[in-house]
């Protein structure tokens, strides 16, 4: 009898635990409005849901909520990059579940605008704020006359390098790619265990930015003519760049590890890579890695150029706020999209705590930002030295409406190239063929 009693008590306990699990689940799975990560200040005001993954974003939301009576922001972090895009994509397909305002990198805007998932913000006053943003970032967020998103941050590129390793090997800071190749050889010859830089085959937008610096314009696309697309990924500029890097790879002067893995992070901080070709959000990323070498001395220099007399600035990444077509109140959503990172106060948080690089000109042009000293770089004013120039020179880029697919194919081709199975030109010709086939399959009219 005792064992039966104990057994029944055990079963009831387990059942109770399981059932509490059920009820807890149903409580938190109410409407999305009920599950904000941030606090709602004015409970009576209508709420606009926002998906974003910016670091230190909760403070920015609080700034907005405290200063607005007519609308409140309800923010959740729905994942970073592709994780969030997967959820967004399925919510578009199922026609429900999308947020009102969503953070989207500029490279995926046309992938979503072609599915009619984004609202053209020109009817909601976007052109009134156009002059507050840099030319390049505004062009990335628009397509023809339509404006699909409000720019937030950008990724002008520079070169982060280990000053101590350069001095130890006797290398001068390279200003052209030719000097860069020489520096790589010098570093190897000095007996160092590490290499000058890593060339990741999964660099995706990074690889594309390097091609763009040599004048490559891979895609011509305008959402006002959504079925027409121009594809030219194997132009001479891209081929030259790829042949250059393939040469370094085959000579063993650079490594080809996958980027943003744990191995890669460790190599960044322990000196295996002496150079990190980075966007303006790179310093924030670098600072966030643990186990950094205490004796490391990092500094920032402009990206090496192909032609020192005609420098070309490029951009890697950068995100925007878009209003989705499933938004309840589009006016309020547009107001939120323009207002969240639309004040100096919110940008101070973004710069200091989020390590973001603003496309917002009032912050970009301010003395505060230009003179900001970064202790990680020994007090160097990296914005004034490098990134402001890079941002000013950036004139925008066009991405395809199937950019995810294009990047996956690029990764495969580059991997095959570094394995020695084909050279740079063949890789790009193959990529061109694949993309043209895919675009034709998807119903586009392809022009070269």
């Amino acid at each position: 009898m005792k064992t039966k009693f104990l057994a029944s008590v055990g079963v009831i306990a387990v059942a109770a635990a399981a059932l509490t699990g059920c009820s807890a689940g149903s409580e938190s799975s109410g409407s999305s409005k009920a599950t904000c990560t941030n606090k709602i200040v004015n409970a009576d005001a209508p709420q606009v849901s926002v998906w974003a993954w910016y670091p230190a974003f909760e403070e920015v939301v609080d700034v907005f909520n405290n200063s607005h009576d007519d609308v409140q922001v309800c923010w959740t972090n729905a994942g970073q990059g592709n994780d969030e895009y997967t959820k967004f994509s399925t919510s578009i397909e199922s026609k429900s579940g999308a947020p009102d305002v969503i953070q989207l990198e500029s490279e995926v805007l046309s992938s979503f605008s072609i599915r009619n998932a984004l609202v053209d913000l020109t009817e909601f006053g976007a052109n009134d704020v156009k002059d507050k943003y840099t030319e390049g970032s505004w062009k990335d967020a628009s397509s023809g006359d339509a404006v699909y998103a409000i720019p937030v941050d950008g990724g002008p590129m520079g070169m982060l390098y280990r000053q101590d390793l350069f001095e130890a090997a006797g290398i001068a800071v390279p200003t052209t790619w030719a000097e860069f190749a020489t520096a790589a050889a010098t570093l190897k010859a000095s007996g160092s265990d590490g290499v000058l830089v890593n060339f990741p085959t999964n660099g995706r937008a990074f690889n594309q930015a390097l091609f763009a610096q040599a004048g490559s314009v891979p895609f011509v696309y305008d959402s006002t003519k959504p079925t027409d697309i121009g594809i030219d990924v194997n132009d001479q500029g891209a081929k030259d760049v790829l042949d250059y890097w393939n040469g370094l790879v085959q000579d063993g002067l650079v490594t080809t590890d996958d980027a943003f893995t744990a191995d890669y992070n460790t190599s960044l901080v322990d000196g295996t890579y002496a150079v990190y070709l980075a966007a303006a959000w790179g310093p924030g990323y670098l600072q966030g890695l643990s186990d950094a070498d205490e004796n490391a001395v990092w500094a920032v220099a402009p990206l090496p150029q192909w032609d020192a007399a005609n420098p070309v600035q490029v951009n890697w990444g950068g995100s925007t706020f878009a209003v989705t077509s499933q938004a309840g109140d589009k006016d309020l959503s547009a107001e939120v999209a323009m207002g969240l990172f639309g004040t100096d106060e919110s940008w101070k948080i973004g710069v200091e705590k989020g390590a973001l690089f603003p496309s917002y000109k009032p912050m970009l042009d301010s003395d505060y930002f230009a003179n900001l000293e970064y202790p990680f770089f020994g007090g160097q004013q990296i914005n004034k030295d490098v990134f402001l120039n890079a941002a000013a020179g950036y004139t925008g880029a066009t991405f395809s409406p199937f950019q995810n697919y294009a990047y996956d194919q690029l990764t495969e081709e580059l991997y095959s190239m570094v394995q020695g199975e084909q050279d740079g030109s063949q890789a790009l010709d193959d990529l061109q063929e694949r993309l043209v086939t895919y675009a034709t399959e998807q119903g586009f009219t392809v022009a070269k």
Partner: protein
Amino acid sequence: MIAPGATEEQNRTKDTDMALTELAPPPVPATPRPTRRPRRQIDRMDRKRQRWGWLFVAPFAVVFVTFLVAPLAYAFWMSLQTSTLATGTSFTWFANYAKAFTDPIFLEGLGRVASFALIMIPAQMIVALVAALVLDNLSTALSKFSRLMIFVPYAIPVVIGALMWGFLYSPRFGPATDIFGLIGLTAPDFLSQGTIFASLVNIVTWQWAGYYMIIIYAALRGIDPAIYEAARLDGANGRQIALRVKVPMISSSMVMVLIFALIGTLQFFTEPQVLRAVAQGAIPVSYTPNMYAYSLAFSYSQFNYASAISFALGIVVFAGSYLFLFLTRKQSGLK
């Protein structure tokens, strides 16, 4: 999950025993069977009993229909339509299936999982069978401990296991560099194009051999020990008993295990997908058909074609399983 085959053998032995000892004639029932009730009353009684049956099945049926049947039907309906990025959705009957079965990426993935099946399944089966046979012979405390330890990898969730192995294979975080360094060699790169196949086989064998071992062990436990005695009297040694007596008697549970392994391998997804985080070059997005369907749907937003690929894979798995069961119908005990 005791293998039916073993008990069937046992029953046959019992029946022959009974036949040898003399039977009394079967007992006549004390009361004659009641005559059949009128037809209308039977229907009412039967329906009343059936209602209780349906009531008990109802919770499961609701879940089954909502989460399995309805999504399958919807996915099938989606696979009959084509949607392109530029021109939108249209009803195209089985064009997607024709495209799927002539898609070189899909066929390459199928070939890859077939070669996984050819190598991984024998590897798992041999490890599981040898372990089960050895543990069946021993009955020490060590054998009980070993049984638990071989089974433990199955208790680890698949994703965690794959993540763990990702770190073990990493040149920096894994032990390979140190271990190979001890004997003066450089460790191979486990995540390169040439070695990724073997690395994946290793992970799956590590995880699943224990599970199959338990099933085979349970089947072995169900064999009547008198048979071993009879075999020993006939002069068989340990190895011959293992191979000639035990293995044939558990053949039906082995067939069941092989079917599970075959279906699981043809649908190979989790380990390569998780390892992609550390080996993006060696494992392309379309490494296996399931991964291809996943990336089509969730990276490229081609939900219709993804559904068609999933069903095409299902057709291949069904055909493969049916063929396999047909070829092993004598051993599986289904005949």
